[in-house]
Structure formats: C-alpha cells, structure tokens
C-alpha cells in the first residue's frame, strides 16, 4: 500500500510540472509589454532597462521558467498589483474559505448523488427511472450562477429563510450554526452539477454490480435483499469514488461563480476582483493553488480507491 501510494505521488510530479508550464505560459501570453504597464507611461528608458533586468525578462524563456519555478517552489508567486502584498498568502487566506464551501458542497453532492443513484438503480419501473434521469439531467445542466440567483430570490431575498450572502453573520454569534446557515444556499448551488453526475454514475455502477454473478450467488445463499444491495453498493463504490473525487475537483472551478453570487469570501471572489483590476499574479496564484488542490484531491481519491479495492493495490 505504501509503495502504491509512493508510486502515485511520483506520477503526480510530471503532472505538476506540466501545470506549472501551463501557468507560466499564461503569464507569458499576456499581451502588451509588462514593463510598460508596470511603469506606466512616464517611465524613463533607464528605469525600463533596470526593471526588465529586475524582472528577469531579458533572459531566455527557459531560464525565466526555471527561475519562476524556483520562486514558486519557495512559495513566491509574485506580488499582487492591486493589494501590494505577496500574492500567495493573500490567495491562501481566501482559499481556506473556498475549501470550507467546497467540502460542504462535496458532501451534499456525494450524499445526494449516492442517494439519488441508489434509488434509481433499485427502484424498478419507468416512473422512478424517468424521474431520476430527469432530475440528474437537470442538475447537470444547471449553471451555478443561475441556480444561485434563483435560490437567493426564492429562499432568501423574499423570505429571509437563509442569508443571501457572506460567510458569517457580522453581528450575531459566529458559531458553527451560523456558518452552516450561510453554507446551505451556496453549497447547494455548487453541489448541483456534481450531484447529478455522481447520481448517474452511482446508478450505472449499481446496476452493473447488481447484475454481477456474485449477486445471484448471494441470493442463493439466503442473504436478504438489503444486504445483497449493500454488497453491490460496496462493489460500485470504488468507481463511484473515482468519479466523485474528480467531481469534487471540478467543484473548485464551479465554486467561483457561486462565491461571486453569494459574496463568499473565497478564491473565486478574489479572482473576480482581480480580473477587473487586471491583477494577474493573484489570478495565477489562484489558479495554481486550485490546480494543486485538484492534484492532491486526485491523489487522495487514488489512495482511497486502492484502499477500497484490493485488486488494484499493486
């Protein structure tokens, strides 16, 4: 198992290198002259030259990349142009809030998806099957920003059942109950797409597992149906988990829109503000942190998969 894990971690290294290259490229494709934009129209020729040198922009591109990567590894992702602070700590602070929201949404998506999928797989008949197909199709198709706004209008703005934004109530107590209250609407908005996907996946894996030969053998041994389904579910779980993990990773993308709609003080909101300020280092740091989290999530999922299915543990 340890060997298996180490191998997986080893495999993640080239991926991370690739990620860094892609992000580096997005830095370099910025149109216009970064020096000019930093200095503004009044910069002298001498200042230009010094800044170019300072920024290392006179070196060949591979050298620039290596230097940049060295900085990144040391946690230096450049400075925020708008905030005049180091981009990474700034982004990291926001990312923690994003993580809170994402974990909550992931729980909603996984639990809801499993419930819906199992229901669809074990209830016979066209109505149940059609219903679950429709529900998952709808939820898969629903853009996070649309869902978020609809939820705000119908469950928050008019009714006041839930807060329409923010993460904590500034006046009231800031306990867990308050946080949970703020989490529901954004959590559901972010969860809907992965929920639908997971539901479909669970349904088809459950159907596969239920049609496996060992299920008939279990029935022939007098194992009651609910236990048989539990066996089937156990067998469906590893593949469900893989997809679910991937979806949790994608949540990190969709959650941006949710954060904007609900003013959730996370990475998405930071990125959104940085877009209008053209604060590229922050955007890049945000994307890098998300990609890192994504890779880590995939690693965890891989490890869990190995834990759950002894056959793939090599």
């Amino acid at each position: 198992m340890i060997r298996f894990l180490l191998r997986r971690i080893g495999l993640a290294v080239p991926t991370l290198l690739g990620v860094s290259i892609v992000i580096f490229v997005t830095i370099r494709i910025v149109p216009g002259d970064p020096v000019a934009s930093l200095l503004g129209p009044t910069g002298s020729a001498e200042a230009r030259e010094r800044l170019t040198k300072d920024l290392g922009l006179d070196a060949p591109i591979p050298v620039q990349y290596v230097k940049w990567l060295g900085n990144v590894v040391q946690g230096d992702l450049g400075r925020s142009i708008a905030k005049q602070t180091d981009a990474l700590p700034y982004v990291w602070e926001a990312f923690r809030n994003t993580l809170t929201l994402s974990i909550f949404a992931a729980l909603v998506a996984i639990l809801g998806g499993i419930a819906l999928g199992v229901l669809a797989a074990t209830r016979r008949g066209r109505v149940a099957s059609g219903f679950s197909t429709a529900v998952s199709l709808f939820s898969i198709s629903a853009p996070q920003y649309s869902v978020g706004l609809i939820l705000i209008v119908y469950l928050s703005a008019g009714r006041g059942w839930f807060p329409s934004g923010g993460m904590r109530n500034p006046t009231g107590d800031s306990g867990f109950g308050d946080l949970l209250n703020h989490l529901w609407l954004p959590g559901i908005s972010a969860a809907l797409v992965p929920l639908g996907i997971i539901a479909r996946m669970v349904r088809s894996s459950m159907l596969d597992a239920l049609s496996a030969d060992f299920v008939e053998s279990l029935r022939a041994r007098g194992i009651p149906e609910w236990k048989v389904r539990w066996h089937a579910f156990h067998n469906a779980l590893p593949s469900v988990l893989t997809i679910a993990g991937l979806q949790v990773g994608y949540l990190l993308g969709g959650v941006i829109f949710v954060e904007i709609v609900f003013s959730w003080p996370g990475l998405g909101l930071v990125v959104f503000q940085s877009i209008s300020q053209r604060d590229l280092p922050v955007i890049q740091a945000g994307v890098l942190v998300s990609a890192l989290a994504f890779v880590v999530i995939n690693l965890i999922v891989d490890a869990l998969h190995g834990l759950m299915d002894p056959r793939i543990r090599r």
Partner: protein
Amino acid sequence: METATPATSSVVAASSSPAAASPDGRDGTGQPTGAVQPTLRISDLHTVFRSRGLTVAAVRGVDLDLHPGEITVLLGESGSGKSVTAKSVMRLYGANASFSGAVELEGRDLLSLPPKEMLAVRGAEIAMVPQDPTAALDPLRRIGAQLVEVLRQHKVVPNKAAAQARALELLDQVGIPDPKRVYRSFPHELSGGMRQRAVIAIAVSCDPKVLIADEPTTALDVTVQAQILDLFQRLIAELHSAVLLVTHDVGVAEEVGDRVGVMYAGRIVEFGPAAEVLNTPRHPYTRALLDSIPTPGVERGRLRSIVGQPPVSGEIPAGCAFGLRCPHAFARCRSVDATLISVGERRQAACHLLEEEVSA
C-alpha cells in the same frame, strides 16, 4: 408430510400417456431406495420468462426426485433448461419469471412459500455451487468474511467467534491446505481450484439437505476438475445431502452420477440409473448425444452438436420437440408430443417409438 398431492400431480405426465406401464410413474422407476420419501420432489415444473412481450418457456414440465446421499445428474445441450430448472428450485428469478407445478422440500412446497421463509431455505436447506467460482464470490470481501456471513445469516453458530472457528474448520474440510491464509485472502488471491473449494465450503456450511451444483467444474482445469469431483463425492457421502448436478459433460455424469436425467427443450426426455442410461440409451436424443462424443472413454469431450439446432425456447415445434432433428421421427412425432413413460425397470423415456415397443 402430505404425500397425496405430489403423487397425483406427478402421475399426470405418465398416466396421460396411453402406454404408461405403471399407474404411478415414479414408484416403479428410478428409486433404489423404494418407499423412502425423496428430500426434494419436483413435480411438473414449468418456468416461463416474460420480458417485453416475449414469452420463453424455458422449463416445460419437469418431474424429478432427489434422494439423500444420491447424485442426480441433469445432462443436456446448452439452452435445454438445466440451469433454469436448478435455479427455479431456489426461486432465484425476478418478477419476470413465473412458475407452476410444485417443488417440495420434505413435503413443503417451496413455490408457494412466502419470500421470507424462502430466504431461510436458500443457503441453509438448499445450497448452490455455481458454475464459475470466480464470479460466485464478492471480489471485495475476504473469503472468511463471506463464510461467516452465511453462517451468521442462518444462525448455525451462536456467535462470531464460533462462526470464525467453524469457517476455518469448513475450509479445512474442503481440502484447503492452509485455511488460516485462505480465510484472510481475497478471492483474486486464490487459484481457480482453491476458489471453487471455498465456494463449496460456503455451500455446505449450513449442512444443506439439498445441494445444487450447476456445472461446478466447467471453469476449471481438467486435473482440478477431478479433484473437485472427488471432494464433492466425499462431502456428499459425509453430509448425506441430496444432490442435483447440472452438466453437459457426459464424462462427469458417468463418473459421479447415480441417476441421470437427460434434458431437451425444457423437458426430461430420458431418466434412469446413470450407468444404464449412458450405456444403453433408449431415447434417440440420448443416443445422438452420446454419439456426438468423439471417443468415449479416451477423451472426456464436450457435447458435439447434433444435426440441426435445438429449438429456441420461445418457439417449440408442435409434436415432439426433438421431432425435427430425430432420425427416426414418423408422422405421430410431428403432431403429438411424447410424454415420459416407463421403459423397463427404473427407467423412463419420452418417445413415441418406445411407446409402441412397450405396448407391443
């Protein structure tokens, strides 16, 4: 135990035939133990599948008695309904299957048993060894856990510790050299033969009265096959279970079978003591079946195809189902179906030719 009902219903097939030699088709035939009640009595079993407007009559009136300590073999080509017969006994089909007739376990009709009681019968009183040992085990559970699950389910042991001890004992009983290791193994870590032994251990764990083995050796190597068959015979001698062994391997039938029923298109067309049926077959289909083996005794071959195709279960021709492929068929065979009649001591066959012989 109510004996009247099965006796009468089982007579129907035989007595409807004008040439039936004995008023009770059963008692005079195939019962070495004479008056002893069979453990399992299948009477006029029909199994029909309905899916999407298609109706498939997979089993069309099977009568069969299983006696303790005896191996009854169902032999026949692929698609003849052997597995369906075996699984119908355990009611292992969903809502798309309907049964008629009777399956009596020591006088209790299983077909009309409430689902809950049927659950207690499966695995405990009637156990099954399926064809493919790999597919029979939950790939994600350790062998030990799967054994313990069954033991606990049917409450044959008082507690978990006892279940574990019993499981190890069972693994030892089925000839597994290292029970402790196998107990902790996942199915994929075992060889095919070991897996089948484990499956057999699960099947016999609750001392079943009836053991149904659906081609238990088909998926195994020839050498392993022989070992498993030996094990099987040994266990049955110990447990005194009544066994229904499904196979399409004539060699297996000959080696371990006490009695043989030859199935064709959902029916038993010939029945009798294994040695007799396989050495002096009476039904043209049995003969064709045996002829289709390349060199009997030298190579234990699979059934080679007989001229023509067996009828698809959905579209069985009028008259005798074998009529279209039978070299001896005559006019009557195309219009009237043949029923099982007694053709000599302890033997039955369903063929118009034999009817004439018997009545002559």
